[in-house]
């Protein structure tokens, strides 16, 4: 390693830590979220440095992008309620008025009062000790460790794909991914079960955004397809593609587009679960010829993985977009006779 690389890595590390600190400590929540997004982007840089382009993509799309969007929209909703109840000023205008932040600090800021000072010192001390202990533990690890790289490399040719990360995700440890899809679905179920989120902060999208979305959405679809396709060989795959798809959805939602009511019944539900459903079905089908659960025969593995990934991409995209939207689509809340399909209730 050259000195330059060391300097770069060191700088990146320090910047990451500094950004994290600013994110957590900044008085203004909006600023905190923006900083968090920046943090996420730098994280993807770190992933690249660590030779993990797949994660870099995922981090940029999901970790920074979608999480950021979720955070922002949540903040907006918080402030809508605040504005309605009239107790807190909107935080959003502080992009142009940083002087105000001091005042906001008192209201929504850290909420750390002086009486906690002693506790705080104690905590800092404790956590420093923990960090030091962890650092010691990490540094005590041997500097050379192959991990499972050899196993992965040896089995790569029968996995059906040539990108080792995809191989691990969908073949070697496909079961994890299966459960992970369930977690994603679960998050949506959980959000929906909460019901009645405050209405999103609606501003008229304006011509530019409208145009932008018209231009970008097809492109995003294309990119998603590309990422999905390329995932078997190069960085990319279902999660990255799905999040790009979700980005398209988010953009559309932001631009004021709402899907027609007839799609919000079981078509939506179907789209949400198809990834998991296909995954489970494949997993079970593999048992029919006497294999193990999820045992993909090398001959079809590539095709099957692509099948699973395609379905998963769709579901991930729709799920993430739905998460962004928040509450259950409205068609579900009107009486059943208004909707055509039989899936809805209430």
């Amino acid at each position, binding site marked *: 390693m050259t000195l330059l690389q060391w300097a770069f890595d060191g700088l990146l590390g320090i910047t990451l830590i500094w950004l994290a600190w600013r994110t957590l400590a900044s008085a203004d929540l909006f600023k905190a979220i923006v900083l968090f997004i920046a943090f996420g982007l730098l994280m993807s840089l770190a992933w690249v440095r660590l030779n993990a382009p797949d994660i870099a993509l995922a981090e940029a799309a999901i970790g920074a992008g979608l999480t950021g969007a979720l955070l922002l929209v949540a903040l907006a909703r918080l402030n809508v309620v605040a504005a309605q109840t009239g107790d807190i000023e909107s935080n959003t205008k502080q992009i142009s008025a940083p002087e105000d932040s001091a005042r906001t600090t008192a209201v929504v800021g850290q909420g750390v009062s002086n009486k906690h000072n002693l506790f705080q010192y104690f905590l800092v001390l404790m956590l420093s000790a923990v960090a030091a202990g962890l650092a010691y533990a990490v540094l005590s690890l041997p500097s050379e460790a*192959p991990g499972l790289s050899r196993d992965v490399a040896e089995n790569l040719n029968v996995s059906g794909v040539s990108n080792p990360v995809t191989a691990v995700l969908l073949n070697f*440890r496909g079961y994890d991914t299966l459960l992970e899809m369930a977690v994603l*679905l679960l998050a949506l179920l959980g959000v929906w079960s909460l019901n009645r989120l405050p209405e999103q902060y609606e501003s008229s999208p304006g011509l530019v955004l409208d145009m932008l979305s018209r231009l970008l959405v097809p492109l995003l679809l294309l990119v998603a397809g590309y990422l999905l396709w390329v995932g078997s060989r190069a960085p990319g795959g279902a999660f990255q593609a799905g999040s790009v798809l979700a980005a398209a959805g988010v953009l559309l939602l932001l631009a004021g587009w709402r899907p027609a009511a007839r799609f919000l019944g079981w078509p939506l539900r179907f789209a949400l679960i198809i990834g*998991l459903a296909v995954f489970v079905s494949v997993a079970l089908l593999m048992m029919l010829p006497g294999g193990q659960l999820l*045992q993909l025969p090398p001959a079809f593995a590539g095709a099957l993985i692509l099948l699973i990934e395609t379905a998963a991409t769709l579901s991930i995209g729709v799920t993430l977009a739905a998460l962004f939207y928040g509450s259950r689509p409205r068609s579900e809340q009107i009486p059943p006779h208004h909707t055509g399909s039989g*899936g809805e209730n209430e």
Partner: protein
Amino acid sequence: MLIVLPLIGTLLCFLLPRQVKALGLMTALAIAASAVALLWQLLQQGAMRYSVGGWGAPLGIDLYADGLSLLMLLITATVGLAISIYANAAFKLDKLVHFWPLWLLLWTALNALFLSADLFNLYVSLELLGLSAVALVALAGGSAALGAAMRYLLVSLLGSMLYLLGLALLYHSFASVDIAILAQRMESTPAVWAAMALMTVGLLLKTALFPLHFWLPPAHANAPAAVSALLSALVVKGSFYILLRLWLEVFPLSHAAPGQLLGLLGAAAILWGGVQALRQTRLKMLIAYSTVSQLGYLFIAFPLATTMAWKGAMYLLLSHALAKSAMFLAAGNLLLFGGHDRITQLDRVAQRLPLTLAAFALAGVSIIGLPISGGFIGKWLLLTAAMQSGEWGWAVVMILGSLLAAAYIFKVIGYAFTQAEVTHEACEVSKTMGATAFVLALAAIVLGLIAPWLLALMDIAEPFAMSSAALNAGAAA
């Protein structure tokens, strides 16, 4: 099979919300049936190892079923089935639409958790478990429940993070996250110690061992009754199970001091939880604190670390699952019927619901650990283990805990006998709801009668052998 079934159920329930009642119940029955099938299989061939995807550890993920996991699965199936029936009667359709998919996902998570032999897979299951539990708590609505759910969520995520960091250290030390492989490669390095500390603390957070229990009472008390029952009976046991596995198999080298610490915390939990329970004025809070106290017993086994102690703890775990779920369901009935759960005013309600009251009393018997009940067997085993090790301090704590339990349970039951004219009734309670609670409580009692059989089940593949062997080796050295 056990994992996939509830998943399919979830999907179906999600897709067809109108039919949730029937679909959910069918799934629940199917899961219970397959749990019994697994029992049959294990009885025939002993412990099973199954490689998902055919890769095998360390590359792939292994499932592993022995007596320990089998019992957890069975108890999950039993309690789960009962709660399914109860929920169908207790919730209205608009709640059920949400309840079923979430609950089946929770069930998926539990089954996955009890079967997995892979630490990372356990992490994903754990997240699935935690998130679905949180969502279920929030189902109750109302600011108290939501606040409790939020707190629970944060704690649960924190716990997962700690666990994951520990897992990272283990992976990078031994290039595997499979429990069996780790057990073979285990050695005592700083990284292993750090991993042990991290994972243990993370799991303790989720298991709500004193003093990390602060989130539990509000979450368990404010959730809907069926959910409270699930949480207390099964969910906290999930993380305890992982902890048990870790300590039994992955970290058997390093018992003495940390084990003592866990034991001390357990003892503190028993007493503190008991005292707090006694002080509560609301029934569900009382039961929730009782859970804190009862969880403490499970940790008494750690310093003793003999086979008998482990079995005792397991037995307590099982009977607590049954009894506590019965208790929460009973409390739910009282709450529904009377519109409140203030203990001093229960008399007006309790006498109108004799079956529910009987369920509560029987469950109480098991919680206190009176004979004949599952709780008694568990405590007996633990007590004997403590006495045989000559550590009678633990025994004294356990006895005190039982006395406290008796105090808070009879505090409730005492009011039930008071004569009081019937005032209002908020809501009709269906027969099913009373019966479910009663059956569960009865099961907790029956557990006291089938001990030899159950203890034999625990011996499948001797999950406890390793730690006692290590202990003996340590004693010999």
